[in-house]
Each structure stands twice: as structure tokens, then as C-alpha cells.
């Protein structure tokens, strides 16, 4: 077994005087889908922002593919090049850019024009609706379509690790199912995924492993199906 794709050890981060993450450790192996579940304010988004370099880590290690992002002080704009792309919470589509331009922005760090073109084509095959609406403003898409665009946009960087922050946020249940099917499909194609979700049941169903985050600390971690059947998790996060 090769080294994990992402290994986070004792990560500390926060805003101003407040520390949000306390010695958080987690791991994503190559080819895995890992779900991170937790209540509001547990630090899920902060963790992802830290991995993307948008929020600075205050301590600990983030080793991506053998490179320590914290010790080497890799700035946010270079982390994408190292193979980590995020689809942020709330989708954050460039609403005045067309769908096509949004996809092109996702490939901003790449300089292989033909490869980018081929990947746009791939995105259109995966999400046919995006091809239909490629010249419309991103802001005019429906919520589900915007989420698809956000995922497709993140994929344009050809990441080894895709971070998804609440892909089900504000979407109708049917659309959520569609989105999760896409995540599974992507994973089959070789993309590792770190998935942050409030919709714990859906997330644990697609994931291989899961972490439970409570006030900045990992409190449980196990195989996803074990977590799904754990009575404490069921009571706290699955509403039973």
C-alpha cells in the first residue's frame, strides 16, 4: 500500500482569537471517498478551507501526495496545481460568467489548451445539461445545475483529490441522489474525494470511510457502513 494521498496530522486553525480545529487528524487514501460529517459549526468547512490554503493552518501537518503544505507554506493558488481542487460550500458559481467560462476558470492553472478542451468535453458528457446551457450565465442555472457546474469546474483542474463542501445544500432530494451518483461515478474514474456533508446518511452511503467531527475534534472514525449502523451516530446524526 502506497502512502496516503492526503494525511492531516494535528491540524490547528481558527479565526482571530478563536481556534476552530483542535489537533484534527485525518487521512484520505488513493481511490477513496471519505465523508466528514458533523453539526453546524463543528469545523467542517474550516477544515476544507485549510486544506485549500484559503484559511491558514496554525499548526500541524497537511501532507498532500508527499508534500507538506503547512511546513512549505504553499500558498492557496499553488495548492490547486499540486492536485487538490475544492467545490466550495454554496457552490460559488461565477454567476456572470457563462457556463463555459466557469469551466475554463476551473482550468486556470493549466496551460495545456487541448487537454482543457478535452476535459470540457468530458464534463459535457457527464453533465449534458451544461452543454445545452454552456453560453448562459452561470447564475441563471437552477440550484442542482449550479452544483453540477461547481463539481465540473473543480474537476477541470484535474485534481487527484476533490474536496466537496455540502454538495447537497439546498437541493431537492431527487437532485441530491443524482449528485451523489455523480460522485460515485467520479470515484470509479479514479478521483479521490473528501466529502463534507450535513446529510450524513447520503454521505455515509457513498463513502468508504467516515469521520465524525465535533467542535473541531474527530470523535469517531470507521468504515462508513459501521458508522451508519452505530447507534450513537444514528441518534446524533441520522435522526433516529
Amino acid at each position, binding site marked *: 500500500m502506497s502512502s496516503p494521498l492526503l494525511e492531516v496530522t494535528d491540524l490547528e486553525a481558527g479565526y482571530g482569537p478563536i481556534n476552530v480545529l483542535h489537533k484534527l487528524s485525518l487521512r484520505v487514501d488513493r481511490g477513496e471517498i471519505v465523508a466528514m460529517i458533523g453539526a453546524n459549526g463543528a469545523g467542517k468547512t474550516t477544515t476544507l478551507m485549510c486544506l485549500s490554503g484559503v484559511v491558514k493552518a496554525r499548526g500541524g501537518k497537511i501532507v498532500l501526495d508527499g508534500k507538506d503544505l503547512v511546513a512549505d507554506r504553499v500558498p492557496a493558488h499553488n495548492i490547486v496545481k499540486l492536485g487538490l481542487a475544492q467545490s466550495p460550500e454554496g457552490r460559488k458559481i461565477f454567476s456572470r460568467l457563462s457556463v463555459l467560462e466557469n469551466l475554463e*476558470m476551473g482550468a486556470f492553472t493549466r496551460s495545456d489548451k487541448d487537454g482543457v478542451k478535452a476535459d470540457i468535453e468530458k464534463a459535457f458528457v457527464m453533465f449534458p445539461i451544461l452543454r445545452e446551457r454552456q453560453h448562459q450565465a452561470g447564475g441563471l442555472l437552477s440550484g442542482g445545475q449550479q452544483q453540477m457546474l461547481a463539481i465540473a469546474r473543480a474537476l477541470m483542474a484535474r485534481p487527484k483529490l476533490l474536496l466537496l463542501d455540502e454538495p447537497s445544500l439546498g437541493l431537492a432530494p431527487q437532485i441530491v441522489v443524482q449528485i451523489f451518483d455523480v460522485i460515485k461515478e467520479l470515484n470509479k474514474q479514479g478521483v479521490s474525494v473528501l466529502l463534507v456533508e450535513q446529510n450524513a446518511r447520503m454521505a455515509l452511503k457513498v463513502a468508504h470511510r467516515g469521520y465524525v467531527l465535533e467542535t473541531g475534534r474527530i470523535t469517531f472514525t470507521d468504515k462508513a457502513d459501521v458508522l451508519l449502523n452505530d447507534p450513537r451516530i444514528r441518534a446524533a446524526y441520522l435522526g433516529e
Partner: protein
Amino acid sequence: MSALRHWVPALFVLLAAYPFFPFAEANRGEQFTILFIYAILALGLNVIIGYTGLLHLGIAAFFGLGAYTVGILTVPFFPFQQSFLVAAIAATLFASFVGVVTTAPILRLRGDYLALVTLGFGLIALYAIRNLDAITEGTKGLNPIDAGPFPGVKENVDLSDYQVNSEWGIRWYKYPYLYFLALGVLGSVMLFLRNLEQSRLGRAWVALREDELAASCMGLNPARLKLAAIAIGAGLAGLAGAFYAMSLRTTGNPATYDFTLSMIMVCCIILGGLGNRPGVLLGVFLLMGFDRIATNILDNWLQEQLGTGGKNYEKISGWKLMIFGVVLILMMRFRPEGLLPEARVKRELHDEESKPA
């Protein structure tokens, strides 16, 4: 609209031909020159506000820096005596440099906070210019500015072989020579910005304007992008300032470079269409054209009609600011995207039929 699509090149051709028409007047031409200069200034500001979305309220400071750089490098009071070409390049680079240096510490500020700090910067620059008598001659301004156009060419280079009209001057900084030069530079700036918009940098600015967080998740470097926008915007403002000082042959009263100018420039680009080059051009020509040219004409006409002396309330120019205000309020109410909005803005505001339920 399709017939009007090429109005910008058509306008440039018309303006280039203007001095050759029999009705052309030197006075009017000099007023047009000033309009071209303000257009360069507004296009620079548009890079900062329109493309990148940084609400900068101190652009007049860079305009002033450009004008004073030309003043310092050319007037007899100082030992430099450079040509306009050298001084204009220095003005552009200096304004650009000051832009980067003053913006670097405030890059983290967003929206209103950035606007407030830049407003403060504009005021500080203005008072510095006014009070640094030893360098700027205070409220007298630096003059006379009568540099030669290029290094080694004297200011009174004889252009009588190229005269369009025998009554007009033969000095290169007089109409129509400076007119052509300013028009040419304005045209070049338009082309430069068109290429810039389609470049990687241009698209990155738009992404940054739309959503800074998402942009940094895509691997864009917000700090560097913002500094690039300020460097180019402030540089163009400095270039405009250089031409302004040259056309007036003095840096004029420092009050020329005050907050009002920054504000009017913001109004011009909002009126015309934020982020859209032709829109900005139209906004400047309408607003500054009204300010500088139309009010004069109307004042004279009114005086002839009324036959009375020039009390302020009997002049259009006395009502100028109120007219500006009313126009802006009406614009915000009925056409918030500006007269010629950027295609992207239009697409967002007026694509109702394809909007999903």
C-alpha cells in the same frame, strides 16, 4: 443595434477627421483634447472598478501624480528639462508604482472599507500636493510646461509644414497636434484594454470580481491580480495626468485633482456601463462633454436669449451638479446597468425568459 455595433471605430475616424472640417475651431478642439484625456483616466479607473471590482475612490490622486511628475520633469524651475515623452513615461510608471505601494497594505479590505481607505488616500495626496510648496509651488501650480515632444526636439519645433488651418498654432502642444496625439493614445489604450480583457489576466479579474473565494479555490492569486489591476489602472491615470498638464501647460490648481474628480469619474463609468470599454467612453463623452462643452454653449445661448448678465441661477453651469445628480438617480432607477452594459451584466439582468423556475 447591429448597425451601431461599429460606432466606436466610426467615432474615432470622425474625431480624427474633425480638424479637417471647415467648421472646426481650435477652442472646441482643445476641449475635445481634454475629453480624450478624461477618457483615458476613466478607462484606467474602469480596470480597477469595472474589471476587478475594487471600489477605488481616489483615482484623481494618480491623475494628479501624473500631472505633477510631468511638471517636475519639465518646468524651468527644476533642473531636469526632460521631453514630454520621457516625462509621460515617468508619470505612468510613477503613478503605477505609487498605486501598488499604497494598495499592497490594504489588499485584505473589501467593498466599502477599501472605498473609504482609497478616499482617504485621495485626500492625503491632494493635501500633500497643496502643501509641499517647495516642490509643487502650492496653489500656484507648476508652470510653464513647454517641453519638446521627444528627447532632442525643442519645444518650439516648427510644424508649419503640417498646418491644417493657417490660423492655428504651429506648436506641437497646441491644437491640432496634441489633439491627434491624445486621440491616438486613447485609441491605443482602447485596443490594449480589449486585448487585456480577452487575456488570462482579464478573465481572472472578472472571476475575482464575481467571487473571490471561489477564485482562490481555482488557483487564482487574488493579491497579485488586484495589484496588477491597480498597477495598470493607476498607470493609465498617471498617463492621463501627464497629457492633462501638457495640454494646459501647467499643473494648474491642486484642487483640480480633488475628490470631485474621482467621483465624477466613477459616475462616468457607472453611467456608461461598468466594465464595458465602449460604455465607459460614452459615459465620459456624455458627462464630461456636458460638463466641459455643452454647458458653455448653453450658457452663451441662454444669455443671448435672456439678454441679462450672468447670475449663477441664469446659467446652465450653475445647475450642473444638480443635473448630474438627477441623471444619476434616474439611471439607477431605470437602467442600473448603465447605458451600454457589459455583455455579462446584461445577460444576468435581462435573461428572464430562460430563467429556470
